[in-house]
Structure formats: structure tokens, C-alpha cells
């Protein structure tokens, strides 16, 4: 007695669907187990502390975009690594939008103020460049605002909340910050500045790792910016207080400087690198220099074998070192295009295959060429960061 043809078909369909569902569950299980920490199956954040990476992750899990997570992690970093960055600085974003396949760069680097001193550059070689005359107009919060306007999913305020919650009761000075506060090259300068108010205790000693840091003024500013947006910093009460404070130290930064600050939204520079396209930030960032170096190096056709023995490693690092030396000679080209005499054609040539090939031909087995060999005679030796 056999099953009817119709019933057989139904049975086969059910078996097939069950098998497919089983395979899908197995695939998800295998992916999850293969992607165990430090690998992850869905999304990832790399900031410079565990706390700030976790804050970025939490924002993603709340439905935030990559930009939301980045901004939240950066606000956190401003508090846990205040020696590195903060609302008084500037930022450059390179953003890949998966839904459009486009990459764009938001440049919120600081700008020279309107009343910039004509002879400031004469001060460059006169010691450590700290103090009010070196302050440029901060772009950080306008950068966050522009990025959030374009790509944000969660409310602006939400991005500030984790850091406000973290900072409100005070934080323990992280070990890295403690290292900077006690560094023999930094402490003598810190000791003479207004940062004493923040990082020194009532007995006059610098705070160290693990000490409690209370920072109520920043908590209030973060709350105000979270509520009122970036305008609070650029044309609100915070702007007035900031200009008042730093004017007491001789700063020429004005309310007009803050009000007039604008972010630049530009296309990235890019090159092909084997199977990849590399996108980076154009000048005044150093993306063109990075791409120039990678373009030179790709012609050496490096593989795993290039690092497999001591002699091959040495040969490989020699080529890398030579490419870096040639790059020193090109750094002068990465100035702000709106104020530059260097045309875009020069920048296109810098990251071209033909220029990379030309430079590669000048790299030989010697590591003792004079500076003129690298066309770097015109470059000052002062580093920029």
C-alpha cells in the first residue's frame, strides 16, 4: 500500500524545509562559536580604552549607527584620555556608508583664528609650544554634529549620556593618564599652567593613577551640549565662558571665531591595493602620504615569505624604510588646499602608479643615501602631529 503522489510531495517538502532550517541553525551556531571573543559575529568597536569601546558597542546594540557609536566612544575618550583629545580639539572622520557604497571624509580639524599673530612661526624653535598663543579654533563638536546630522540614528543626547554617567561621580585617573601627569618632560610645564586647577590636589601634588578626579565643570558642559546641541559650544553660554576664561591667559580666540567655524565635507583619496581599495583622508590630513607609501611598497610584491627569514625581513624593512624616507620629502605637499599654492594635479601625481614606479626605481640596496636623494631638502625637520 503506497502513499499517494500528493502526500509524497508534501512529505519531501517538509523534510527539505526541516533540513534547510537545521542547516541554517547549524551555520549560525558555527559562525557564533568561530567568532568567539576577541572575534565577534556582528559589530565591533576599537577605541583606546575598554570602557569607551564598550560604550560604542552599547550604542550599536541600542540600534545606533557606526557614526553614533564612534561619537559616543570619542566623548568617552575625551574624559578617560584627556591628554589626547577632547572638546577643545579637532577631528577627521572617514566614513563608509554600506547602503550607498560611498565613502566620504568630514574634516573638522582646528582652524587658525582671525587675529592670528603674524610672527607666530618665529616662535617655533623657542621651546615647548604650549600656552594660549598656540590655540586654534576647535572643530571637534561641529564635526560630531555634522557626522550625526548625516548618519546618526539615535538622538544626539543619547550619545553623551554614558559619559555623563561615568564622569558625574568622578573617575579614577587611568594608568596611562597618570603616566603623562608624572612624566618628567611634561610635569614641569603642567605645573606652571592653568591645568593645575584640574590635575593637582589641594596639597599641591599632581594626581596619580588611581586618584579620584572630579570634573564637575566638564559634566555641566557635556549636559549643556547634550541638551542644546553643538551651538551651545560655538555660540551659546559655553562659548562665552570659554572665551572669557582663555582671554585671561592672553588668548586671541574670539566668539566670532567659534561662531564662524565650518566643517569641510570632502571626497577621500584612494588607491587600489591588490584586492582592496584603500580610502583615506585628503590633505591637510596625511592620507596622500600613506597612499604614496603603500603604492611604492605594493610594487615589491611582498608576501608571507617576505618576513620568513632574518635576511628576507631585513630586505623587506629596508624597502619600507626607504619608502618612508621618500615620503618625508613629500609631506610639505599636504597643506590646507584652500590656502595652498600646491595644485590638485601635484597631489594626484603623488598617489599615481607612475610616480610610485619612479620612486621604486630609485630604491636600491643602499641605506646611506644623502638627503638630496630623497628630494627632502626643502622639508623642515619640525614634526607635526
Amino acid at each position, binding site marked *: 500500500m503506497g502513499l499517494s503522489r500528493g502526500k509524497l510531495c508534501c512529505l519531501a517538502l517538509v523534510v527539505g524545509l526541516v533540513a534547510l532550517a537545521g542547516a541554517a541553525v547549524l551555520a549560525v551556531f558555527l559562525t557564533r562559536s568561530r567568532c568567539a571573543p576577541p572575534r565577534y559575529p556582528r559589530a565591533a568597536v*576599537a577605541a583606546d580604552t575598554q570602557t569607551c569601546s564598550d560604550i560604542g558597542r552599547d550604542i550599536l546594540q541600542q540600534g545606533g549607527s557606526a557614526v553614533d557609536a564612534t561619537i559616543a566612544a570619542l566623548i568617552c575618550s575625551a574624559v578617560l584620555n584627556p591628554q589626547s583629545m577632547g572638546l577643545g580639539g579637532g577631528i577627521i572622520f572617514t566614513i563608509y556608508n554600506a547602503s550607498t557604497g560611498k565613502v566620504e571624509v568630514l574634516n573638522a580639524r582646528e582652524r587658525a583664528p582671525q587675529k592670528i599673530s603674524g610672527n607666530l612661526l618665529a616662535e617655533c624653535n623657542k621651546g615647548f609650544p604650549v600656552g594660549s598663543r598656540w590655540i586654534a579654533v576647535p572643530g571637534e563638536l561641529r564635526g560630531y554634529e555634522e557626522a550625526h546630522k548625516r548618519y546618526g540614528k539615535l538622538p544626539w543626547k543619547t550619545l553623551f549620556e554614558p559619559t555623563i554617567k561615568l564622569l558625574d561621580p568622578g573617575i579614577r585617573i587611568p594608568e596611562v593618564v597618570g603616566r603623562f601627569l608624572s612624566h618628567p618632560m611634561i610635569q614641569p610645564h603642567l605645573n606652571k599652567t592653568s591645568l593645575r586647577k584640574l590635575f593637582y590636589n589641594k596639597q599641591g601634588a599632581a594626581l596619580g593613577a588611581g586618584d579620584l578626579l572630579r570634573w564637575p565643570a566638564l559634566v555641566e558642559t557635556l549636559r549643556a551640549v547634550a541638551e542644546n546641541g553643538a551651538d551651545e559650544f560655538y555660540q551659546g553660554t559655553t562659548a562665552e565662558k570659554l572665551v572669557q576664561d582663555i582671554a585671561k591667559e592672553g588668548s586671541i580666540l574670539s566668539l566670532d571665531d567659534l561662531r564662524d567655524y565650518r566643517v569641510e565635507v570632502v571626497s577621500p583619496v584612494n588607491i587600489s591595493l591588490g584586492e582592496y581599495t584603500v580610502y583615506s583622508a585628503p590633505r591637510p590630513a596625511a592620507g596622500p602620504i600613506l597612499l604614496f607609501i603603500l603604492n611604492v611598497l605594493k610594487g615589491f610584491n611582498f608576501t608571507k615569505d617576505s618576513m620568513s627569514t632574518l635576511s628576507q625581513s631585513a630586505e623587506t624593512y629596508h624597502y619600507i624604510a626607504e619608502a618612508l624616507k621618500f615620503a618625508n620629502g613629500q609631506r610639505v605637499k599636504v597643506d590646507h588646499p584652500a590656502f595652498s599654492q600646491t595644485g590638485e594635479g601635484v597631489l594626484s601625481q603623488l598617489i599615481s602608479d607612475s610616480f610610485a614606479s619612479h620612486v621604486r626605481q630609485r630604491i636600491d640596496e643602499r641605506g646611506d643615501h644623502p638627503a638630496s636623494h630623497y628630494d627632502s631638502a626643502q622639508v623642515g625637520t619640525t614634526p607635526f602631529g
Partner: protein
Amino acid sequence: TSHVSVLAEDGSAVSATSTINYPFGAMVYSPQTGIILNNELADFCMKQSSGRISPGEMPPSSMTPSILISRDGQSKLVVGGSGGQLIIPAVVLTIANKLWFGYDVDEAVKAPILCTNGTNGIEVEKAFDKGVVAALHQKGHTVKTMPWSLNVVQAVSKDGPCLFPYSDLRKNGQASGY
């Protein structure tokens, strides 16, 4: 300077580098707002030959927030770093280590770097292979050891189904994900 790399569930990515320039920037503190001000105008010092800064001008930077995407869109590397003039060699070497030398992203970031200084000499991190240093000397390079490592790279890579974020231990970094 501080760098954040993010790769989200929809495949979108952000590479962002932020700075107040030198450690603690200009070392000017606004007590009413809690803000520490940058000393970014110091980055104009490399313009000394042209000798003029215009209002509104942005100073040159070593920042290189970068995103690498494979032709089929399946593999990505989101990368950038901090450390002033060390940013460029640190990011170059991270990319080379990952793409060409077959390192996982953590090893690619951890590997000691070399860089060049203003006089075209080479400087290496303390843990850099001594045998390689000797060989570079033989080729005529001037090689010094850096007194400390300020180069810090944050990266997220995606190869196959997994995302691998890595925050540089040189700054006690730790990444996260889900």
C-alpha cells in the same frame, strides 16, 4: 591624539582620529567649562619656509583615518592611529602586516615598528628584531632605538564571517563587540 575604528552590523564603517595635538594640548584649561584647549597652531611650524598662516587655515596633520574594502565588499580593514609623526609608519606597517605578511590584526598592530626621523635616519621600537637592526646597519642606515613608544593603532578587520577589533596595548587599549 586618539583613534576610534568601528564596523557596524550593516557593514558601515567609521575611522576617526581626534586630537588636541601635544599631551594636554596648549595646557590651557577653561575652569568654567572644564575644557582643555588644543595647541594645534604648533603644527604650522613645518610651514616655516613659507612663513605665513592665514585666518581660517587648517594646519597640516599626520592623521590618516583609513578604510580598506575588498572588491567583493566582504573583507574590510578599518584602521588609524595616534602618535604624531609616528602615525604614518604605524598605519603603513599595520596594513602591510595584515595584507601582505599574513598577520592577524592583533599581531599586525602589536608588531614593533620602524620609522624615519628628520635627518632620514631610522628609529625602531625597543622590541624590534635586533638581527634586522644589525642588517639595516650593514646596508648603511643609521638606526636608533626610540626611548618610548607613542605609536598607537586601533583597527577592526573583517575576513569571512568574523569581525576582529583590536585596540593597541601600547596605550592599554581594549576593543569590544558583539
